[in-house]
């Protein structure tokens, strides 16, 4: 343990839950926008954030009648913060929806547990909608052997998967150790505080474990 670790512990303990939540949300938002794959839905965090947004809205509604310039100014600050929080949540959810729409079959086959309840409901409903649209537009007149939408035979898979080899920028939050880039003979060591541009597939597990953040 060196001085950095001690300092980190001190700052972690000193910052209240709210600040850490904001940090976490920002981190999740950046990661979701950068990573090619969908990431686990932060259930507890989202609940806390939404709860706080609701409380702030209530507070603002209660205080609006107040003409005292001091509270009025405070209110403006709160509202600005509220708008920013809302933006973060909105952008985060929209980034997820975009991914869900882009690789629906891949996600429903591989990472369904990463979705929140409402997201998986959206995914299934959207898929049923799409396939019935195809069905009524042209597929019903096809020979039955060609009806499937997730056919993987014949050399071409119909399931579109995200490209796990996309390069991403990342920063190490903890020491990860030596990692190997699959398919090449490159190996390098990731230390705390390092910034790297690597393939997503290489650091995927470290990101999910929270040792590496995407930037």
């Amino acid at each position, binding site marked *: 343990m060196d001085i950095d670790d001690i300092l980190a512990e001190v700052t972690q303990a000193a910052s209240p839950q709210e600040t850490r939540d904001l940090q976490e949300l920002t981190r999740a938002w950046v990661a979701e926008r950068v990573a090619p794959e969908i990431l686990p839905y932060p259930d507890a965090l989202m609940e806390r954030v*939404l709860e706080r*947004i*609701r409380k702030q*809205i209530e507070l*603002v*509604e209660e205080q*609006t009648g107040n003409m005292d310039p001091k509270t009025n100014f405070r209110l*403006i600050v709160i*509202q*600005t913060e509220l*708008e*920013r929080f*809302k*933006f973060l*949540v*909105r*952008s985060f*959810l*929209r980034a997820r*929806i975009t991914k869900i*729409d882009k690789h629906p079959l891949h996600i429903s086959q591989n990472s369904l547990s990463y979705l929140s309840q*409402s997201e998986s*409901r*959206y995914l299934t*409903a*959207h898929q049923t*909608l*799409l396939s019935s*649209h*195809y069905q*009524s*537009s*042209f*597929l019903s*007149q*096809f*020979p039955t052997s*060609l009806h499937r*939408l997730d056919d993987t035979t*014949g050399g*071409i898979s119909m399931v579109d998967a995200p490209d796990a080899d996309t390069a991403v920028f990342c920063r190490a939050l903890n020491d990860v150790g030596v990692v190997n880039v699959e398919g090449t003979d490159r190996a390098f060591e990731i230390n705390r505080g390092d910034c790297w541009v690597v393939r997503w597939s290489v650091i995927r597990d470290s990101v999910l474990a929270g040792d590496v953040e995407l930037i």
Partner: protein
Amino acid sequence: MYGELGNKLVQHAKRTQSLAHLPPYQTEMVRAVTREVRDLDKDVSAILEPFAGSFDPSTDAPTACALIVNHMCMKRNKRCLLAYHRVRSDKLEEMCWRGIDVLERQQQQSGKNGAEGSASLGAEVGNTSSLSPEEEEYVRQYSDLLAAYKGQWTDIDLTGSLEPPRDLFIDVRVLKDAGEIQTEYGAITLTKNSQFYVRQGDVERLIAQGYLQRLC
């Protein structure tokens, strides 16, 4: 024959991607490609018929080749059709997210184009509306789905702006009369060419719909 029409369809889809509006649905072409698939399927069964289920590709290479070509063409046509419809439905979804009422706009257009008859009649004729009846149904259902998903996030407007907010209040100019709106600071009557300093969250919808213009 053999995928030529499918290619045209894909070119259409490619062009659609870079257009702001949705070009008319190619009913004829879609039908022709589907017909081609059915014909190919008939061909396949005709070729296979004399063998009565005991076809061995290694003994009869030419027939096997013909079968493969037919089969690949069917698959390719299916891919083309799927791609074409997907591009269009993506576009429609995007419009739903941006809060554009696709169906209403369609009716307006068809009302304008079809000189005689009502708007609904113009849509029925088909060549004036750029959506197929199936697509119209799809849009209707997708909007419902979207509304249902959005409804779970009561405090956050998911279809709102994806630009990071900078200021709480902004200057706007009214482009079209929008009537009276309620804000926390009382009601404002939006008359054309007037300017206001309002809270961004209150007027975001109106900006998206083109009633207001943001001044920098």
